[in-house]
């Protein structure tokens, strides 16, 4: 569903991402691994349109989305989460999620002024979508809690729900399991499986190798901005280049 062709991003004279081509299939969990500074986050930023590539193309379901601004790309169905998500600490979980569906609505200033039918309908719809997303990540019971009062793991799930409320086809997750304990990691992995079961395509960056190896359908390995390997967890584990460049030498991999 997502085809990346010869993607390159230069910062100054350095290639953060260098000639990467990859194909992510629909309804799969795709993982990107690599040592720190391998260009993983830049790769995400390129797909999401936050940075424009120096060269190469990004094709989503047959449409070239490379030149699009990131809000249009989000509307085309690419959602994402960040390593840390700033939420409105003193607002409720539900209030935080309502804006997630905003990109599928139209109402503007005039609707606000006259409190139009359209605005009312859209606000109702956004609320419904927010509740659905919250239900999906299993947090319906904290709907009315303040963000400031929920746990770290619940925050992660709220961030997922926010991305889900945009109704993405493809979800980019940047280190979803960072900072949560092993038990909770299992829970998050289950959640990702649930997303795929519901027709989403997931693509994640992750350092927790055991988690990746256990759940990814396909893994791409980046090193110094270049793709050095691609394949199933089994293939990656046995790939000598990967062992040499990444698993063998970098202590991050073990972490």
């Amino acid at each position, binding site marked *: 569903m997502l085809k990346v062709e010869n993607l390159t991003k230069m910062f100054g004279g350095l290639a953060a991402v260098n000639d990467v081509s990859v194909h992510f299939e629909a309804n799969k969990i795709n993982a990107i691994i690599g040592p720190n500074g391998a260009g993983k986050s830049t790769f995400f930023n390129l797909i999401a349109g936050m940075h424009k590539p120096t060269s190469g193309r990004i094709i989503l379901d047959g449409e070239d989305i490379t030149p699009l601004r990131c809000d249009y790309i989000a509307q085309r169905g690419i959602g994402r989460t960040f390593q840390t998500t700033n939420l409105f600490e003193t607002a409720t979980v539900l209030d935080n999620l309502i*804006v997630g569906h905003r990109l599928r609505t139209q109402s503007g200033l005039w609707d*606000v002024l006259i409190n139009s039918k359209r605005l009312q309908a859209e606000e109702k719809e956004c609320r419904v979508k927010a509740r659905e997303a919250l239900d999906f990540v299993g947090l319906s019971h904290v709907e009315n809690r*303040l963000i400031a009062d929920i746990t770290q793991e619940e925050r992660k799930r709220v961030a997922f729900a926010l991305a889900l409320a945009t109704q993405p086809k493809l979800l980019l997750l940047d280190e979803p399991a960072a900072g949560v304990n092993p038990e909770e990691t299992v829970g998050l992995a289950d959640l990702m499986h649930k997303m795929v079961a519901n027709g989403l395509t997931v693509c994640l960056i992750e350092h927790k190798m055991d988690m990746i190896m256990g759940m990814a359908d396909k893994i791409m390995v980046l090193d110094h901005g270049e793709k050095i390997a691609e394949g199933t967890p089994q293939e990656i584990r046995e790939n000598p280049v990967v062992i040499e460049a990444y698993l063998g030498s970098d202590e991050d991999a073990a972490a």
Partner: protein
Amino acid sequence: MMFKLAALLTRPATKYVFILLALLFPLFAANEYQVYVMSLAFVWAIAVYGLNIITGYCGQLNLAHGGFFAIGAYTLGLLTSDYGWSFWPAFVAALLMTAVLGFITGVISLRLKEHYFAIFTLCVGFIIYMLLDKWEELTHGAIGVRDIAAPYGFGVVDFTDSVPFYYLVLAFLIFSIWFISRLSKSLLGRTFIAIRNGDELAQSLGINLMRNKVLAFVLSTTYAGLAGALYAGMVRFIGPEDANILHTFNLITYLLVGGIGTLFGPLVGTLSIVWLTQSLQFLETYKMILFGPLLVLLVIFFPNGLVGSLLLWMRRKAESMGVAKAPKASRVETSNSATGKEAENNA
């Protein structure tokens, strides 16, 4: 007990009580001067509401706000005194002028992030001050603008009297708050708040940053223009000092005391500080000796302000008492206690 009192204060019906009190205020004011001060406080409050849109909801610290207030005042002042316009057409022109200039400034400045935006708007505020001070052919320079028309009462009321003018300002204030209450509940208001939480996150939610930021900025400058025009019609004499950067700092103080990003924070903050300084007249010249440390203490220990802290306390209290009944229209009352910098460092 405290909780019951607070619950009473936050009941939707309570606002009608306050409106009633405001309507009756001229009756039990000790003298006309108090009515005048109250009108002035309302004018400032309208300006603070404008600042709250761009800074409170949208998270962009705009230091040119006082400058736009002055542009509104000068537009009205110059059109009525030099060009013979009557009040209401000039009033509309003042709103349009601040909206248009706000749009131009916004399109240029809002491409800049955080610190750059704050510094840029600081400079814009200063340019406005300098132009008002130096462009003598247009603005009369340091002499200022005299003989500004009072609002025309269509033969029904005389707005040169302080009591009718008080009601005029009150009407505009109520309209201003009403609009913001609708805005803050709406998807548009939520969009602004999403931007405050972070540009990247907002973009990943498919929000057009520039369009929404510029819209918030234009709304805020128009509010400043509205307040400025009312101010000019009230004091009838303005000068370049009305664009002094200290006025912007005043507005920020009012906003912070009341509670940044809350619906009633601007009103509560403005009224309490204005009346506090009124009752401490001897401090007038040196009030900044108090304001300065007050600002610092507020952002360190009390960043939610009066209204924000009350609402937060209410929420927590309600939850701990197990009456977590969600208010029907859950307005997003927010305040900046997010861990913004940590995220910045982690990135």
